[in-house]
């Protein structure tokens, strides 16, 4: 098995401890510069107002009274926001079905006991509870030692609703194909991954990923076995192009709309803790080196404005209607290489607009084994 590359870089691009502090600090400092009236609604919509303020300034607002232009934009943004936006705020455990990550200590037809960083936790299993470990199975069939992600029942916090065991995902560019499997580059912010495709899943994966050769993209979901992923389910269809032959971007004009629809995917925790609610954004400021490969950022069909770690997005699951504000905690440059759609409920516009942490994806009602949900993100929340 080829060795993993150990030279992945993080700096400003990973959701680590430093990034968490930086996110908080940036929000505070940004609010200090553009301080709107101290009303709750205005505070919630502060970030959204920046975009409007920028547009006012870009359209040639008077050079002198910039403050007035910004203030006007803040008020305009606050007034223009729909009520659900005005109410939106950061996700809390009380509002969203909670995602719990841990290792199974004990399981029975009625109870599940997990161990995680904060100790042990016991959850009730109802007849409606479903589990996944490479395929659907009864929760009682899970084994002690399995690493699981549990979505708790919306109304009862002690009840497990969905359980995913040993689930993993590899998204990136195939860099090497060996007799044992595939070595996949997930981008400069993450370590390389090794994917083993068992014969029983080979046909299913090759229907959607016909070119399992270096230079082509792959996105598979499967079971974690040691340091490798046993790929079982294709998460999307393979783009026909090689990574070094990306299609030209669409030439478009005008400002980027505040709300952008597309596909929201998930990623495994790397440097960030498993429970963090956040989103890896595909178009971080080019200055932080988020774009994969050399040269300018890789363009997708959907135009995505440049943001940074700490920016806030309102992410909405168009399939369930759930939404919450999430901070940008990382870079999802590989997501821009896929110019695909999500068909979980209807057909989403082309492009991946958010790469959610596992906890965010589950909390927003996503099914991990499906790989994506149709989503709409609103910049600035």
């Amino acid at each position, binding site marked *: 098995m080829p060795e993993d590359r150990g030279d992945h870089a993080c700096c*400003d691009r990973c959701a680590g*401890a430093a990034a*968490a*502090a*930086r*996110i*908080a*600090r*940036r929000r*505070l*400092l*940004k609010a200090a*510069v553009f301080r709107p009236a101290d009303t709750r609604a205005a505070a919630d919509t502060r*970030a959204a107002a*920046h*975009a409007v303020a*920028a*547009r006012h*300034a*870009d359209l040639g607002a008077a*050079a002198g009274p*910039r*403050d007035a232009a*910004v203030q006007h934009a803040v008020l305009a943004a606050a007034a223009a926001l729909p009520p659900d936006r005005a109410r939106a705020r*950061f*996700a809390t*455990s009380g509002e969203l079905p*909670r*995602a719990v990550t841990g290792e199974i200590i004990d399981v029975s037809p009625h109870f599940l006991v997990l161990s995680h960083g904060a100790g042990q936790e016991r959850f009730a299993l109802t007849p409606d509870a479903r589990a996944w470990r490479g395929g659907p199975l009864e929760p009682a069939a899970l084994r002690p030692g399995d690493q699981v992600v549990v979505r708790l029942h919306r109304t009862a916090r002690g009840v497990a609703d969905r359980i995913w065991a040993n689930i993993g995902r590899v998204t990136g560019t195939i860099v090497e194909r060996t007799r044992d499997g595939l070595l996949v580059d997930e981008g400069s912010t993450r370590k390389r991954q090794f994917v083993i495709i068992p014969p029983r899943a080979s046909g299913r994966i*090759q*229907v959607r990923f016909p070119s399992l050769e270096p230079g082509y993209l792959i996105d598979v979901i499967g079971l974690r076995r040691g340091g490798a992923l046993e790929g079982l389910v294709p998460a999307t269809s393979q783009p*026909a*192009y090689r990574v070094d032959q990306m*299609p030209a971007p669409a*030439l478009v*004009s*005008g*400002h980027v709309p505040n709300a952008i629809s597309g596909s929201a995917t998930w990623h495994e925790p790397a440097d960030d*803790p498993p*429970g*963090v609610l956040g989103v890896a954004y595909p178009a971080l400021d080019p*200055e932080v080196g988020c774009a994969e490969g050399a040269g300018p*950022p890789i363009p997708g*069909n959907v135009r995505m*404005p*440049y*943001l*940074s770690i*700490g*920016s806030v997005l309102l992410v909405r699951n168009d399939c369930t209607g759930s939404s919450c504000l*999430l*901070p940008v905690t990382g870079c999802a440059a590989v997501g821009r290489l896929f110019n695909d*759609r999500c068909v979980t409920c*209807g*057909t989403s516009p*082309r492009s991946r607009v958010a790469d959610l942490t596992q906890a*965010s994806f*589950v*909390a927003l009602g996503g099914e991990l084994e499906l790989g994506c949900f149709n989503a709409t993100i609103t910049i*600035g929340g």
Partner: protein
Amino acid sequence: MLLSVVVREVQVPLLASLLLGGSAAKLVQVLRVRSIDAALGPTALFPVYLRRTVAMVMCGCEFALGVGLILTAGTIGRGAPTNAVRLGTALLFLVATCALIELRGSRPDVGCGCFGDFSTAPVSGRALARSALLAVAALSTVGLAPLQPPHRGVAAILPLGIFAVELALVAALSPEIGEGLVRLGYAEPCELRIVPAERTLAALHRSSHWRRHASLITAAEPVDVWRELCWRYVVYPGELHGRPVELVFAVFLRQHRPAVQAALVDAVTGNVLPWPQGSVRPASEADRVGRLVRAPAPVFSAPTDPGIGIPAVPGMRSARFGDLPFSRDL
């Protein structure tokens, strides 16, 4: 000349131009991507090993029928060959209509691929209607007498008008038109503009905000720089009456005379402070250099994140992940 005959005659050049345009667009896409696999569309309905062949056959058929329609428009191949080409065209559009219906059901995320990468939008009712309309148009040309040379003067108005109306109808049914219009007008909005941080800093250093407040700054380099939409934020450490402060500048991302906003923040509490009145004057270069030499790095009295040198602020539940939303209390 009967109106119906004129209408039927107009279909031949219209169909030929659409067929040749479609095959050319596919060819351009294939040449640009350097892979025939890129021309997806209805080929997605076929097994993987057949897709390349199907794509080549489709493109070849379109080109051959387009050329055939032009060649047989006059007296060449009069009779059976002409009708064969026109029937073939009708058959192509009929099959395409059925394929698009199937594609819409089985692969709703795939575009029709009719005009290469202009046709990336999922198959809609408009695309189906267009394909069916063209099939009917092709059928109407079967049995038509050879076309006459182009009319001149007033007589040309009728066929040209019919051609224009039908072209407008086809355009209205074509999602590719929207894509084409979008590609024509390109202007980079500020949220997509790539502006190097060095340029932002240079613009900031030329601004009046900088001249007014530079004397408070105690470090040569900013401690944090980030961008959000059309603004880039620059944070410098500073000192005011012996208290550590941070100067936050927001610089609009524009090439010339960008707007600048500034705020003074208490580095310990995070509170916004009023700018000192009268006591702040532009510092001389020598004074600033002297300050930087004496205090090369800011000193904070508050707990400081060792990784980034940013002081923690009261209100943060912890110095590390306290302000991030968690799905559980780790």
